[in-house]
């Protein structure tokens, strides 16, 4: 079980969980295309890429110590493993949602029409956060709407029901829902760029004992994203394969990629990790989470400590459980992997 204090031993076999989301499809593709194998051989270790169909369950499995790393959003990294006392390090800042999350209304084209409606969304998720930010920007508060928790697998079906008129969702569901007649996207993550981040996190103790794991993961990641972003046949084939793995048509997948700001260049990722905007974002996220009671039993938003590149911290510096580590991305940027 993964506690911050648990001494991790050196090992050679690791498992990384992923679930279906446009920004995370490079992982299974890397395995399929042999990129994982290449980096495994280089660092003499084994990395199992494990699909977990249910996103929440993949995080739970990581928190419970059954996975060494997992793909997740910044907010969930904070509220689930980190708030649960599991010392977690974000190794890769993969992308930010640039329209992959959105607020949809039926029969209205303006955000202000949301007032008084029931909004279906996955409560306490980034959708909830997005809704809060949307309301804030529209001069409203959370009390102006009523939220109905809706499972992400069922939200498309639910939105097809006539009595559901407002919803917040992410891709791929979002694009299907938006395609319904009479539906307008009135707010999206493109309106708050860089706030919804998608990360690859690894258990801090494991990483400390096995720094090669971080290097291999960074190697795999940048190899893969650089391949998929090529505008030639090989890039197209890679994207088509990813679409298939996600159960989507290639065109749908491409359109989802358009609303995903992928940090294909490690330098950009390092810059984003070092930027003070990250601290601002995380402050917003944790204030929202604390207000929603996601820091179980804590008396203040400072209960969970976060560390950023360059020694900056946020919250309880004595109990840092979420670390943004840019060193592996930097190695990639410097070509030293």
């Amino acid at each position: 079980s993964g506690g911050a204090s648990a001494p991790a031993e050196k090992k050679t076999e690791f498992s990384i969980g992923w679930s279906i989301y446009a920004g995370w499809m490079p992982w299974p593709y890397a395995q399929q295309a042999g990129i994982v194998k290449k980096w495994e051989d280089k660092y003499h270790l084994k990395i199992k890429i494990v699909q977990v169909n249910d996103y929440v369950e993949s995080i739970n499995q990581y928190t419970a110590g059954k996975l060494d790393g997992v793909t997740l959003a910044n907010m969930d990294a904070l509220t689930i493993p980190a708030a649960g006392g599991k010392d977690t390090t974000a190794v890769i800042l993969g992308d930010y949602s640039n329209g992959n999350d959105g607020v949809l209304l039926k029969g209205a084209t303006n955000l202000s029409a949301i007032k008084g409606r029931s909004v279906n969304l996955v409560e306490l998720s980034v959708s909830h956060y997005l809704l809060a930010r949307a309301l804030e920007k529209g001069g409203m508060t959370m009390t102006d709407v009523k939220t109905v928790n809706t499972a992400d697998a069922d939200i498309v079906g639910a939105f097809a029901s006539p009595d559901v008129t407002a919803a917040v969702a992410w891709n791929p569901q979002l694009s299907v829902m938006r395609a319904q007649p009479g539906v307008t996207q009135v707010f999206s993550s493109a309106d708050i760029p860089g706030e919804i981040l998608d990360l690859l996190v690894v258990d801090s103790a494991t990483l400390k004992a096995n720094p090669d794991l971080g290097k291999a993961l960074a190697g795999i990641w940048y190899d893969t994203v650089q391949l998929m972003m090529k505008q030639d046949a090989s890039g197209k084939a890679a994207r088509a394969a990813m679409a298939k793995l996600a159960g989507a048509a290639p065109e749908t997948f491409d359109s989802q990629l358009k609303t995903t700001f992928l940090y294909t260049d490690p330098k950009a990722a390092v810059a984003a990790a070092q930027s003070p905007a990250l601290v601002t974002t995380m402050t917003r996220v944790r204030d929202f989470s604390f207000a929603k009671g996601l820091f179980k039993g804590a008396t203040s938003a400072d209960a969970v400590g976060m560390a950023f590149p360059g020694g900056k911290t946020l919250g309880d510096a004595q109990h840092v459980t979420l670390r943004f580590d840019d060193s592996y991305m930097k190695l990639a940027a410097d070509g030293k992997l």
Partner: protein
Amino acid sequence: MRWINWHLSKRDRLIAGGAPIVLLLVIYLVTAVQRHAANPSDKILPLPSGMAKAITDLLTTPDPLSGHLVFWADTLASLQRLGLGLGIATLFALVLGLLIGALPPVRAALSPLVTGIAVIPPIALLPILFIALGLGETSKIVLIAIGVAPVMVRDIAAHVGSLPREQIIKAETLGANSWQIIVRVALPQAMPRLIQAIRLALGPAWVFLISAEAVASDIGLGYRIFLVRRYLAMDVIIPYVAWIALLAILADLVLAATSRRMFPWAHEAAR
């Protein structure tokens, strides 16, 4: 004394029945304490103190929607859905089970359909349910009913169908028509089995209730469980599940007692 004849006293039965449950609780406690020694903020196996605190919170916090205390509001909402869903399923089981079991033409016409519905996993077709019934209470209640009714219908139909043929003949010689045989011969003899079927359906009914509340809801025990699952708050989930189990066991005991009281003839050993 052969085991088969070894009837325990009431006291011994309580002790024997309690022992494995207490043992499981002790195993849980020991494991939880160990985990907490390793990681004081372990979420997976919360300590009783943590659970008490979490539940106290829910017992004292009013639900923003209804103004009632969260815990009771959840309980009430879930029990209402469960009661309606099980009630509808019971009604179907009784009516269809009797007709299918007693009347060969109805059996021929409906039993393939019921078998078909029984084997279609309803959660796979949720979107169709949403379109037809919306996302409100109806679809939750219908999901429970569709989930448990087919098993109950088939159980009652099989039971009625296996009533001794002599009883039917006897009733016919006494001037009973099909309807009278159904209401006076088949129905009363199906009742104890119906109660047994409800008892067996309680577990699956909770499963479907929780699934329904997980899909789309803003109140209910299943809603809360799936909501807090997002941050692995086992300190809420475990007491909620224990509470569900307690409610279900109470219902089970009440049903068993009702059957013994209302249908004494079904519980006397035949002579």
